[in-house]
């Protein structure tokens, strides 16, 4: 990047955009416009995170309380309460309170009394089940003989433990990575290094065609065909389980990983391969021991992207995983992932209620996990590149 030595013609530009020539006004405008548009893309991602986290904020801060046992004030005493106390008791915002008349507030108080009668006769009814203690650690609920992590949000005593969901997501993603990444990588090495050019011409677009399959079609395929096939092969009990969902997820990530890995392998300079072949290596040795290590940053980035895609995939796991929220590391057990839970349950919840907030909480968690994995992947890719270039 050479700067023009003539001080009259050099322009440092706004926000440090260095340009080596005098800017044409329209060019300058276009540059600024593109810069703003790209900034807005980053801003939108940030705003999505903010809006999602905002819904989950009360639970994150530990301010939500789902205890079913609340003090109840008889309707006759309504007039004795100050406006502030009445607002707090009925859960009204000042705006809602101003708009309401006596009749409506009376019926709200009656409903509160009815709600108190619906409280189940259970020692756990008074617990705040949305506090972190019950979200993250097992507890021995009524009717269970040992401490368990249960996700059963629609229940007389709602149970919001998110551990089964996290384990479910991890299991399905792990199976997908173990199945999909070696396959995609093998295909990428073959197509870019070992295949004759005439095969490469239709193999590469052929595999990338897999990316065009909608995930609901993959999920349907897994539900109807794969599930029966694997149950016939392995003979386990649950027809829909983490294994089937993982294989279907693997099919979904293969084109993603293949595309990027193949591009990374092809962009390794030909001189490497030619040098290896000239020194007597076979094509296989050249591909495996010279080109693949050289393309490692790109291949690793492909795997990280595959992980992000697998962990965020919804339709496939919704249809093929059986959706049973159990804490089990067995692959043959039915599993419930975070994404399927959000998809299946969000429509039902009362806006602003505890279940709603917890679903946004796990959504935020998913966002953070994907973000962190991409960021860690970037850092590692950067280091690998540096090491390859001999700078570390």
């Amino acid at each position: 990047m050479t700067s023009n030595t003539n001080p009259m013609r050099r322009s440092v530009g706004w926000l440090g955009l260095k340009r080596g020539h005098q800017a044409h006004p329209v060019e300058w405008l276009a540059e600024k416009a593109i810069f703003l548009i790209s900034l807005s893309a980053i801003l939108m991602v940030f705003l999505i995170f903010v809006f999602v986290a905002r819904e989950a904020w009360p639970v994150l801060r530990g301010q939500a309380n789902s205890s079913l046992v609340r003090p109840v004030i008889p309707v006759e005493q309504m007039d004795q309460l100050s406006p502030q106390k009445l607002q707090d008791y009925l859960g009204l915002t000042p705006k809602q309170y101003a708009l309401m008349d006596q009749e409506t507030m009376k019926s709200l108080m009656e409903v509160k009394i009815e709600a108190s009668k619906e409280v189940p006769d259970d020692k756990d009814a008074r617990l705040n089940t949305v506090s972190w203690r019950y979200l993250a650690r097992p507890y021995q609920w009524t009717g269970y003989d040992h401490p368990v992590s249960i996700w059963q949000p629609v229940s007389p005593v709602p149970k919001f433990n998110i551990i089964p969901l996290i384990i479910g997501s991890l299991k399905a993603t792990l199976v997908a990575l173990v199945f999909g990444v070696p396959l995609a990588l093998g295909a990428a090495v073959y197509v870019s290094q070992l295949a004759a050019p005439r095969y490469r011409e239709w193999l590469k677009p052929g595999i990338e065609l897999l990316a065009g399959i909608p995930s609901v079609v993959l999920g349907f395929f897994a539900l109807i065909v794969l599930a029966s096939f694997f149950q016939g092969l392995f003979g386990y009990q649950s027809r829909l389980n983490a294994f089937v969902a993982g294989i279907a997820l693997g099919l979904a990530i293969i084109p993603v990983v293949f595309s990027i890995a193949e591009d990374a392998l092809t962009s390794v300079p030909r001189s490497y391969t030619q040098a290896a072949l000239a020194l007597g290596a076979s094509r296989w040795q050249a591909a495996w021991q010279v080109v693949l290590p050289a393309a490692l940053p790109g291949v690793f980035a492909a795997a990280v992207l595959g992980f992000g895609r697998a962990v965020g995939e919804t339709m496939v796991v919704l249809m093929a995983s059986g959706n049973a929220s159990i804490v089990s590391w067995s692959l043959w057990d039915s599993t419930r992932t975070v994404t399927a839970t959000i998809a299946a349950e969000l429509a039902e919840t009362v806006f602003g209620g505890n279940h709603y907030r917890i679903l946004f909480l796990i959504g935020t968690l998913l966002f953070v996990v994907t973000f962190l994995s991409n960021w860690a992947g970037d850092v590692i890719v950067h280091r690998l590149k540096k090491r390859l270039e001999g700078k570390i």
Partner: protein
Amino acid sequence: MTHMKKLLIQLSLIAAIGLTAASARAGQITAKGSDTLVILAQKWAEIYMGKNPGVKIQITGGGSGTGFAALQNQTTDLANASRKIKAKEIEACIKAFGKRPTEYKVCLDGLSVYVNAENAIKELTLDQLDGIFSGKIKNWKEVGGQDAPITVYSRENSSGTYEFFKEHVLKGKDFVASAQTMPGTAAVLQAVAKDKNGIGYGGAAYGAGAKHLAVKRDSVAPAIEPSEETVVNGTYPIWRYLFIYVNPALDKNEIAAYLNWIRGNEGQAVVKEIGYYPLPDRQRQ
């Protein structure tokens, strides 16, 4: 294409959209909610729209919870529900539009318990069902069947069928954690039809592919099959009303007429075709 022509096409598109939007407002009834009711609601809508051309009725499913959420957010006129509204939902409705929603019973339903057609079991007591679905009974041999573990299929927790079953058969206890949840009654049936050791539950309307069990109130009572007689007179133990809830402020003119038609003899005749059970005469409109 010339500039003028492009402009004309754009303007006419906008006008078309505006007109359709305007016409959509007139005489449109929206009903959202229960998946158990969705087929019946669509049939009612079809027949009613055939008889009253000025009215447009739009039906969506999603579960009883979705219907109540939509009622509270005022994105629907009618909320189809396969369970009674809860106090928290009433509270939310009062905060949203100032009144309790009006409840209308629209038909009866018997919840069938499904097993695979090859399963030797033909009847179970309510206690045995309670044990199976809450996880206390894990093997078919404990209830007189073959020596195989029981695979429990359930509905998603957004479903009114799920809540009804939990309240009345499980008496408020949790479903077993390993119960596989399916998105609809048809999916439950399909899963049970493919799984020799499966058991599931669902509305009586979707009845093909697996067989349903006769249910005994206790070990000495007779085993009752779900049928119109047994459900209407209450001898089949697992029965319930299906409801439609409406904002009282909207319950007039077309919507009230539609609701009256549903609860009258014409609407109830449709109920039998779909496979649910009509209201007894004394409860009709």
